[in-house]
């Protein structure tokens, strides 16, 4: 409980700080980039930016802003890790079986009128905590770019809970992605090959000299480095031999190298011959020009646009190859003419996580119940720690289908309906002139001690300060929520320019209340873009 309040305190502090900066209007750089470019930079490097955050960046010189963004990586999560007993897959599996047995017995005992006992599956429970933990981190982090990169690496070096069923392993893998989020791709590749979750996900733990399993080797070549068409089936077989013996200790869940299971014979891989082990294979792959190109192309699709510029990719890859440092690569990407081209603003489709986390952040909503948010992500096709298959989320246009577009709109409508917006302070639109049921009901100022009618009626919230609502659905969290400090007092035009990367598709009535402007922007098709 103490930690919970403390964490919230940190966030409150950060918000207050940026609001303060905005109010004092620090000196603008001579080459200040302006609002729309600042918005673009932040929308691609975070989960969506508030007017205050944009205001801070817009006064800066573009290069300075990029360097600041890249300069403040968070190598460890702000959110405390879920506390699980230190155990390997074997112990966890035993617990799961015990729970299954218990459940079966509980089922048998059920009488005609007795309700069955609820026995939770410890593995599923840990998975739930794991997903909630990451979503929490995305919501509260002060370094969203780090989380964007972690998500990128999670989608590159995929592992899914569905297969791994060992949440501590996935948590460890996530820590690796965070540690090296903007570090070294070479280190990532070497570590991933020894990563316990990966060794489970792609069957490396079962790969032995007598019977090499090709799963990891295949994906290493096809997805992690070269890409299809740049290797042969023999290369896969030979690489698989080199990785034999890399396994995990089922009791501790740690990586082990079992020499007796390793095939130390001669292998021929991509034209080279030697008694290679896994690290040798990785070294050969890192020398291959395709590896850097694969990564740059993928980063381009994630951060710049859906159509990578072939010449620019080659250029960026050529320098990335020397040392595989991710941070300078990202710097070049953000400084590229293509990234800064106004035509590329709004040229990417928000992923479900962008949409959900971004909406909660930008609207300054109290942190809703995370299991509910994860369920929404799942419905929209992006469950953290559960990419659909080894290729990861295809993303891009695939995020939006007839099904998911309606679900996205439904999610947004639900937020719009359940959330109040404070009246505009400037602009002179008097609340009483345009009665807004949602806005009227919740005119609560933090700290003024007054209970708004909604909360009084439900009796749910007995504290004066707006607090996150845990354990309740997003729809009802709004009962005591008005739009947080993020959007209060912002004029209609800035609200629209904050929420949308380009002009609205459908006409927005800018004469309405701030609430109406925000609602119209969120339900506009352009809100699906970033």
């Amino acid at each position, binding site marked *: 409980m103490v930690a919970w309040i403390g964490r919230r305190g940190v966030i409150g502090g950060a918000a207050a700080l940026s609001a303060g900066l905005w109010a004092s209007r620090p000196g603008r750089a001579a080459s200040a980039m302006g609002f729309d470019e600042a918005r673009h930079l932040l929308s691609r490097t975070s989960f969506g930016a508030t007017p205050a955050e944009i205001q801070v960046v817009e006064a800066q010189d573009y290069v300075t802003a990029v360097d600041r963004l890249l300069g403040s990586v968070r190598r460890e999560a702000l959110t405390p890790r879920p506390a699980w007993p230190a155990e390997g897959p074997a112990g966890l599996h035993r617990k799961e079986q015990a729970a299954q047995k218990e459940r*079966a017995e509980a*089922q048998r005992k059920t009488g005609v009128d007795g309700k069955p006992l609820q026995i939770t599956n410890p593995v599923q429970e840990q998975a739930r905590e794991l997903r909630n933990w990451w979503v929490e981190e995305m919501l509260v982090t002060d370094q969203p770019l780090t989380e964007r990169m972690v998500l990128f690496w999670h989608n590159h070096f995929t592992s*899914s809970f569905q297969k791994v069923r060992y949440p501590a392993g996935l948590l460890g893998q996530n820590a690796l992605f965070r540690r090296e989020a903007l570090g070294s791709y070479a280190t990532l590749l070497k570590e991933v090959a020894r990563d316990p979750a990966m060794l489970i996900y792609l069957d490396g733990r079962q790969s032995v000299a007598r019977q090499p399993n090709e799963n990891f080797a295949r994906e290493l070549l096809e997805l992690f480095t070269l890409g299809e068409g740049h290797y042969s089936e023999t290369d896969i077989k030979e690489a698989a031999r080199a990785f034999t013996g890399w396994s995990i200790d089922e009791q501790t869940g740690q990586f082990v190298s079992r020499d007796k299971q390793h095939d130390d014979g001669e292998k021929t891989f991509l034209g080279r011959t030697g008694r290679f082990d896994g690290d040798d294979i990785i070294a050969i792959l890192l020398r291959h020009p395709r590896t850097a190109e694969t990564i740059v192309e993928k980063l381009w699709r994630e951060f710049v646009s*859906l*159509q990578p510029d072939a010449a620019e990719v080659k250029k960026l890859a050529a320098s990335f190859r020397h040392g595989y440092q991710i941070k300078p690569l990202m710097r070049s990407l953000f400084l590229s003419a293509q990234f800064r081209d106004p035509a590329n603003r709004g040229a990417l489709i928000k992923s479900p996580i962008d949409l959900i986390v971004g909406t909660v952040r930008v609207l300054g909503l109290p942190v809703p119940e995370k299991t509910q948010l994860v369920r929404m992500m799942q419905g929209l096709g992006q469950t953290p720690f559960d990419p659909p298959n080894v290729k990861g989320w*295809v993303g891009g246009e695939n995020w939006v289908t007839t099904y998911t577009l309606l679900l996205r709109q439904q999610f947004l409508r639900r937020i719009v309906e359940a959330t109040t917006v404070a009246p505009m302070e400037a602009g002179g639109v008097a609340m009483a002139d345009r009665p807004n049921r949602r806005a009227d009901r919740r005119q609560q100022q933090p700290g003024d001690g007054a209970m708004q009618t909604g909360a009084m009626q439900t009796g749910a919230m007995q504290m004066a300060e707006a607090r996150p609502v845990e354990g309740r659905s997003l729809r009802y969290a709004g009962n005591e929520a008005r739009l947080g400090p993020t959007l209060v007092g912002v004029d209609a035009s800035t609200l629209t320019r904050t929420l949308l990367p380009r002009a609205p598709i459908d006409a927005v009535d800018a004469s309405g209340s701030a609430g109406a402007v925000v609602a119209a922007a969120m339900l506009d*098709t352009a809100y699906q873009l970033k």
Partner: protein
Amino acid sequence: MSLVLLLVELKGGNDGLNTVIPYADPKYHELRPGIGVARERVLPLDEKVGLHEKLEPLMESWKARDFAILQGVGYPYPNRSHFRSIEIWDTASASNQTLSEGWIAQAFEGASLAKGAGVDSIVIDTNALPSTGPSLRTIVMPDAENFLRQAEALKDSTGAMDGGNPALRHLLAVRHEINAAAKGLSEQLRAAPPPAQAYPADGPLGRQFDLATRVLTARVPVVAIKAAIGGFDTHANQVQTHERLLGFLASNLALLRRNLIAADRWNDVVVMTYSEFGRRAKQNASAGTDHGAAAPHFVMGGAVKGGLYGGHPSLSDLEDGDIRHSIDFRSVFATMAQSCWGLRRDFGLRRPQKIGFIAA
């Protein structure tokens, strides 16, 4: 003449051996001392296999010879993960191959479709993978009324400009697709009479079949409809659960048949069940069964030639404790594509088996 395929997914992996039961095989009772179905509770189909007595509502169809049972349907190198195996089925892939388009969408690649109702495929559960792909306009609507309401709230995008932005172009196209589908469907569905006999309200399948019946009765020109029923992942104390599920499935299928006969649509529809895998031949220590491989599946419809297809599953020649497949599911799909839609497809098989369960 084109037939509408109604897919019914049995989620979780249906226990084929307790569905179509090799009752005459002593090995069956040896492997399943606790959960095996006693001889007297089996409805014999021939001297070797029979249906679980809970499937009795299907006997009407069996006797009318419009109910085919395909035995031992599966694929080489079976994967026993729910998630991965259903993906293999839905995309008609090989065991070690990852495809992103569904098999029905693949079948219609390059084929011309009448663009009548603004929708080609309706998914009433939430797994749309079989008809996911650019060749089909697929609508997922677990709840038709809700879908139509949602669609109405989404303004039509006619006239909106994408300004050369491909991401926006895609969004506007999807929006238009929803509007078009809703327009086509709302008129036809609202005009459709309710099913002759109401479906039972105790379970999701009845509600899904109700919508399927209305879509078919209204003659919405779709190529496929998909429904699903969950709960087949019976690892522990499975008897009661599994019997209840078989009961649901059979009574709803029987009702569907009667309703479609009453609406004069039964000859235009082929119903097919599928599931990610069957279950282990030997029962486990918790009176349940673990993930297995091949299993029998049902095909019904006025155009179906009833009877048993594929060899009886052998319990003495198991592969890692599981039934070996005698019919590759991709051969079943190839037969469907040919007989329902006149499309010759092999789904990556060098020589798909010809299974004559639909009258040519």
